[in-house]
């Protein structure tokens, strides 16, 4: 009996804590979004973060996409050749990359790079009184720190995913033509024939949502960090873990919304 009560108590506390956290994040997000549409707009801050995300994340996203496309073509070939279905490789590569791998892998890479950086920067500002200083300098920290990051990440991620899609398909094309003996024109024809607008659009929608989630979790975890260097470290870890899990969960939700019949 005591064990059951203890278990239920533990479960209840966990549930209440989860609801409180969810509520905190929702209020934080709503406040930040409201600042994105109310002047004054922090264009300088927006541009700084946009360049950081869109431009400086390019190498890591590009390399990830390129090698993923290459591996995908290679693995598909070894699997499909058992069923004499090698001709489907171009379709598998382009659909996998545009619908799933492009946005998800780019999202995970950016979560590791940008989400962690945002949490660390805002967390450090929190524990060194810089956020309080902003308030005393007549500047709303949500408007100055969070809103520009949300907008920048939401707009930058689709651009990164366009690059990831192109390079992912290119990776598959290179392996297929240079290593597996496919005819280049045939491979490209197969790629174009199977690709539909919705495949690309769904990937870009995912990218925008993932960008928003990465910036939101990075900002939120940093904003509520406390306790010095250890607190900032924890905030950074939490930001990356939370963003990564949310990316994978939301990937399913968006896929369901776009493609379930």
């Amino acid at each position, binding site marked *: 009996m005591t064990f059951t009560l203890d278990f239920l108590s533990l479960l209840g506390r966990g549930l209440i804590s989860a609801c409180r956290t969810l509520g905190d994040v929702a209020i934080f997000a709503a406040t930040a979004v409201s600042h994105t549409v109310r002047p004054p707009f922090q264009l300088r801050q927006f541009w700084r973060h946009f360049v950081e995300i869109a431009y400086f994340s390019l190498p890591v996203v590009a390399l990830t996409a390129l090698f993923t496309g290459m591996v995908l073509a290679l693995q598909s070939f070894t699997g499909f050749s058992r069923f004499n279905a090698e001709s489907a490789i171009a379709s598998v590569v382009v659909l996998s990359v545009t619908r799933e791998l492009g946005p998800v892998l780019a999202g995970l890479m950016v979560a590791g790079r940008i989400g962690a950086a945002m949490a660390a920067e805002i967390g450090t500002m929190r524990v060194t*009184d810089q956020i309080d200083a902003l308030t005393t300098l007549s500047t709303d920290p949500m408007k100055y720190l969070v809103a520009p990051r949300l907008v920048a990440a939401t707009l930058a991620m689709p651009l990164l995913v366009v690059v990831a899609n192109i390079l992912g398909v290119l990776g598959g094309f290179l392996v297929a033509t240079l290593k597996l003996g496919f005819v280049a024109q045939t491979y490209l024809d197969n790629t174009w024939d199977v690709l539909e607008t919705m495949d690309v659009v769904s990937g870009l929608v995912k990218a925008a949502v993932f960008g928003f989630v990465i910036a939101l979790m990075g900002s939120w975890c940093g904003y509520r960090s406390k306790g010095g260097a250890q607190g900032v470290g924890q905030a950074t870890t939490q930001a990356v873990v939370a963003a990564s899990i949310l990316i994978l969960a939301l990937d399913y939700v968006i896929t369901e919304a776009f493609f379930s019949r």
Partner: protein
Amino acid sequence: MSDAATPKIRIRGLRKSFGAKSVLDGVDLDVRARHSMVLLGGSGSGKSVTIKCILGLIPPDEGLIEIDGTDVSKLSRSDRTALQDRTGMLFQNGALFDSLPVWENVCFKLLAQKRITRAQARDRAAEVLAQVGLAASVGDLSPSELSGGMQKRVALARAVAAQPDIIFFDEPTTGLDPIMGAVIDGLIVDSVERLGATAVSITHDMASARRIGDDAAMIHKGRIVWTGAAADLGDTGNAMVDQFARGEREGPIQMELRK
């Protein structure tokens, strides 16, 4: 504006707890307009929390805070912003923004309020940096490139650049050598006099307290236990204040040390 009879800042019954720990337990304090008040007290006595409550950075649990006779808890968002426009704050560790050069740090408030253009801000920053004894070339450096004393001076420049009429200083000389501490104190006195501002400073440094303060108050266990002239520190007749001012181990203030 406050007249002579109305304190610039009036605090009554201010209470604040963090969880079960009571930090402020009914603080009553008056700060006279155009005077410099020094708030003394041991670590954890509630000095910084008092200042943060006045600035609106921490909401108090209970009590009244009036500035120029207006209850700040009843201010609208825009009035609160207008009040912040009139205040300046020097944080203990400077709290300079690492991502911005010094000149942008100094003129941050003026730029945020769009009172000046970025081109004008550079000139204004050079002017204010000169007032705190720094060359204009310092404006192009990053805060991380500055020594501790220079960071304090830049933080002071930022606090006074928008010409506030209330300025808060949180341990302005902590971590500085005695000479640099005296330099910072001198700059604080100059800045406050030049602006005709009301100042509230937190310090543990008695020499600094006497240099920058007209009035002084001592806070102990979340309550004001003494107020008087800063010049009297060390010989106030109050056993707690005198023990604190002389840095004596024995006296009414007992450190809670585990044996």
